[in-house]
């Protein structure tokens, strides 16, 4: 078990440290209705040997168990209670007197589906699969609606895909990894997250600010790591069916089996289909594109604990087709219709091998290799965009210690090879670019095991188009009190500028596309480069015997170079190198509080200052709200003896005004979109561990943007623009689904 754990940690980029303890008091009821602390209560993790006895005043302290979350409270004369504890460091328990019936009473302390640790050096928020289930639907890009660390843009009518943002910056500035292999990048930058079915995801780790040096130099504003279900830990058979009122149908099927003691395999299948025609704003264009697609994933897991080896091998294939535009039969046959189509096929193969020296448990070696072939063929009106991106990624990580286990090191090499072939816009010639890099990294972590830890990393990369350079990164954590933690991070990042792949929405306009060349390596432009630093402060509290915490985050990204995407002139779109300042400053205040035993509240206020120097002056980034407010309430009833219970979830999002680029079709807004509020809600009835149904609504307030396609009467004119989207295009949407775990 120990070895397996270490190997899993090897693939993770964060470091577990310190021993988390659950502390609290046990009380018994008195005749006058008050409670009194009581000693001698046996408190232990169910089916383990880890147990403590409460002190005379009722207080106890027990280290968190890795094996179970069920804590048992037991003393003669009182009911034996079992409580589920997840990420709570404080728990007070109230015993009830034993009545005649000797039934076990199960109480549940609500678990946190978003976990923030006091002990990790980096500012990492872990998101469990339960949290993902709160979101309306279906793929990873749509699953951040209840997570205040990540913002989701509104999908336009052509692609129907939501893009994620963090610290005010778009997804190309994030490093998105799948089990620590960079995955959503290059050709898949825009649509990649939407190609990962939500049900495949086991958990996600969201790092704010620069991440570790281990995974490369690309992360600038943050890192999102997606862990997929493992054949060993996922349910043997899982079926999920979903349908919404816009005619979207989805099907998920998982099948996991042990082949023998060491080898297990999983088959994951996803299909989605949407062919209904919706045009609520009567502009003749589909509000959401037609979609048809499927994903297949087969993975193998080999675990040999005696030899200290864990290995994964997986292959994935996906196909997706989207059709948008004027898909209605109109009488005026003389008019040429504006149509769009995006066809994507992708193949992935990954291999991972982890080895922990059984004799020297602090030494381990990890090897990862991934190949992908991403092929997109698309047209938008008369514009084309085809891209083929073949990518090879490999790394070796070696973990060890210096002196003792308080000083850990990670070192290794990464290799990347990316071959891009593009057919851009009206150009009939293929553009080809090859990116090759080799880099080495060294990361040192120190943990004094009580209140201070640091991670300092440095990497050196040699890249054919970016040159040779160092990337330093530093993370500090100081925990002066048990529930007070401060974190600081600083580091640089850079990336190739795949301007067309990252900004595919530009083709859904009639704008004249211009690249104002200097003589850089990327379409004439230079690579992007930025420094990111930030501070985070978290304070836990206990109010009315319920836990809560307050988090302040302040992060700054300063660009030394950025590719400015200039939408400021109607009928034109230009790309050019930054000449002047560009920065993103983000402030977030988040309060999480357990209102009652059954109701949890998450609330956040965010302020973004994202400004950059355009040729026409220093301006706020368009379509980026300066202020956002978020509240999420979550209720769970107590399960009955069959394990049946209800879950209710409610989310409110207030989106502040956003600067709009100048465009005749938006002139009545005086340069800023109105501020508005959106409501989402979901009800889940869990019948048993094996079966649940859910029903939910998105955009219940029915707020929509009236003119999502500007100059839609004239789709081949230069003023045509389907991308200036500041709010949802479609109104209220209802969905329902079932989940079957066998």
């Amino acid at each position, binding site marked *: 078990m120990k070895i397996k754990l270490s190997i899993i940690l090897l693939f993770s980029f964060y470091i577990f440290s310190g*021993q988390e*303890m659950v502390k609290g008091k046990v009380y018994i009821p008195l005749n006058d209705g008050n409670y009194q602390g009581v000693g001698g209560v*046996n408190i*232990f993790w169910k089916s383990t*040997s*880890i*147990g*403590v*006895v409460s*002190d005379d005043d009722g207080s106890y*302290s*027990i*280290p968190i168990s890795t094996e179970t979350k069920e804590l048992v409270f037991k003393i003669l004369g009182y009911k034996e209670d079992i409580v589920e504890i997840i990420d709570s460091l404080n728990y007070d328990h109230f015993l009830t007197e034993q009545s005649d019936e000797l039934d076990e009473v199960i109480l549940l302390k609500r678990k946190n589906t978003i976990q923030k640790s006091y002990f990790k050096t980096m500012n990492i928020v872990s998101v469990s699969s339960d949290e993902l289930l709160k979101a309306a639907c279906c793929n990873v890009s749509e699953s951040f609606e209840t997570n205040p660390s990540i913002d989701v843009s509104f999908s336009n009518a052509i692609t129907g895909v939501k893009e994620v943002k963090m610290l005010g910056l778009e997804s190309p500035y994030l490093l998105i990894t799948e089990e620590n292999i960079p995955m959503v990048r290059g050709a898949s930058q825009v649509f990649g997250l939407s190609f990962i079915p939500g049900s495949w995801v086991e958990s996600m780790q969201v790092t704010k600010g620069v991440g570790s040096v281990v995974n490369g130099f690309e992360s600038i504003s943050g890192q999102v790591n997606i862990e997929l279900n493992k054949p060993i830990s996922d349910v043997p058979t899982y079926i999920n069916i979903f349908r919404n009122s816009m005619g979207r149908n989805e099907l998920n099927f998982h099948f996991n089996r042990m082949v023998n003691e060491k080898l297990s395999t999983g088959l994951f299948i996803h299909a989605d289909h949407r062919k209904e025609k919706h045009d609520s704003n009567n502009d003749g264009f589909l509000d959401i594109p037609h979609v048809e697609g499927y994903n297949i994933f087969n993975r193998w897991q080999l675990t040999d604990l005696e030899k200290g080896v864990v290995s994964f091998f997986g292959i994935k294939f996906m196909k997706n087709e989207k059709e948008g535009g004027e898909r209605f039969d109109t009488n005026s046959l003389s008019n040429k219709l504006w149509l769009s189509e995006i066809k994507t096929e992708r193949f992935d193969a990954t291999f991972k091998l982890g080895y922990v020296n059984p*004799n*020297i*448990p*602090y*030494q381990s070696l990890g090897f990862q290799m991934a190949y992908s072939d991403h092929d997109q063929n698309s047209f938008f009106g008369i514009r084309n965009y085809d891209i083929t991106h073949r990518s090879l990624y490999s790394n070796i990580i*070696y973990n*060890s*210690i210096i*002196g*003792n*286990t*308080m000083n850990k*090191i990670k*070192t*290794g*090499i990464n290799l990347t090879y990316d071959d891009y072939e593009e057919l851009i816009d009206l150009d009939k010639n293929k553009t080809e670019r090859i990116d090759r890099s*080799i880099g*080495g990294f060294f990361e040192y972590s120190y943990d004094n*095991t009580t209140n201070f830890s640091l991670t300092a990393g440095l990497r*050196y990369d*040699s890249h054919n188009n970016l040159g040779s350079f160092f990337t330093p990164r530093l993370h500090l954590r100081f925990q002066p009190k048990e529930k007070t933690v401060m974190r600081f991070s600083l580091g640089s990042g850079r990336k190739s500028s795949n301007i067309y792949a990252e900004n595919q929405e530009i083709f859904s306009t009639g704008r004249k596309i211009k690249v104002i060349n200097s003589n850089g390596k990327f379409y004439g432009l230079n690579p992007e480069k930025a420094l990111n630093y930030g501070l985070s402060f978290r304070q836990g509290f206990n109010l009315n015997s319920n836990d809560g915490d307050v988090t302040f985050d302040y992060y700054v990204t300063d660009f030394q170079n950025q590719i400015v995407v200039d939408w400021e002139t109607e009928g034109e779109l230009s790309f050019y190198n930054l000449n002047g300042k560009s920065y993103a400053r983000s402030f977030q205040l988040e309060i999480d509080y357990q209102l009652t035993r059954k109701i949890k509240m998450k609330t956040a206020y965010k302020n973004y200052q994202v400004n950059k120097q355009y040729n026409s002056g220093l301006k706020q980034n368009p379509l980026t709200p300066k202020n956002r407010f978020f509240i999420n309430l979550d209720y769970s009833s107590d399960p009955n003896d069959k394990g049946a219970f209800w879950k209710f979830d409610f989310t409110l999002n207030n989106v502040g005004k956003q600067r709009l680029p100048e465009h005749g079709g938006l002139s009545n807004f005086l340069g800023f979109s109105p501020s508005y509020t959106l409501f989402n809600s979901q009800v889940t009835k869990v019948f048993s561990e094996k079966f649940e149904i859910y029903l939910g609504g998105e955009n219940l307030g029915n707020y929509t943007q009236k003119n999502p396609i500007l100059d839609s009467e004239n789709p081949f004119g230069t003023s045509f623009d389907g991308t200036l989207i500041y709010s949802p295009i479609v109104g209220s949407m209802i969905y329902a689904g079932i989940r079957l775990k066998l």
Partner: protein
Amino acid sequence: MKKLCLIFLLFFSFSFSQNSGDKNKKASFLVKGVCEMCKNRIDVGTVRIKGVKYANWDLTSNNLSIIFNSNKIDLDSIQKQIAAFGHDSGIYKAPDEVYNSLPECCFYKTNTPH
């Protein structure tokens, strides 16, 4: 490029040889304790002793497994130092005043393992 590879290869071989050298010794001996809090005290306390690289104490067997650098410290003084922070270790007994200042749940002379 080639140079870089070489540097890293050198580094790998260096770090592997460093740890597989003769100076690193493994040992396993009894240390008294009764609970998970003891485990935390013993693991962290032992690894903080200069020369100790790794420590893992098992509650059920009371066995402490360590890896240490024999050029820097010997087994005897490790055991002496563990006893000095409150846990009977090998032939050494914890001083009474240290034992009495242990957290209540760690009183291994009177408590049963829990």
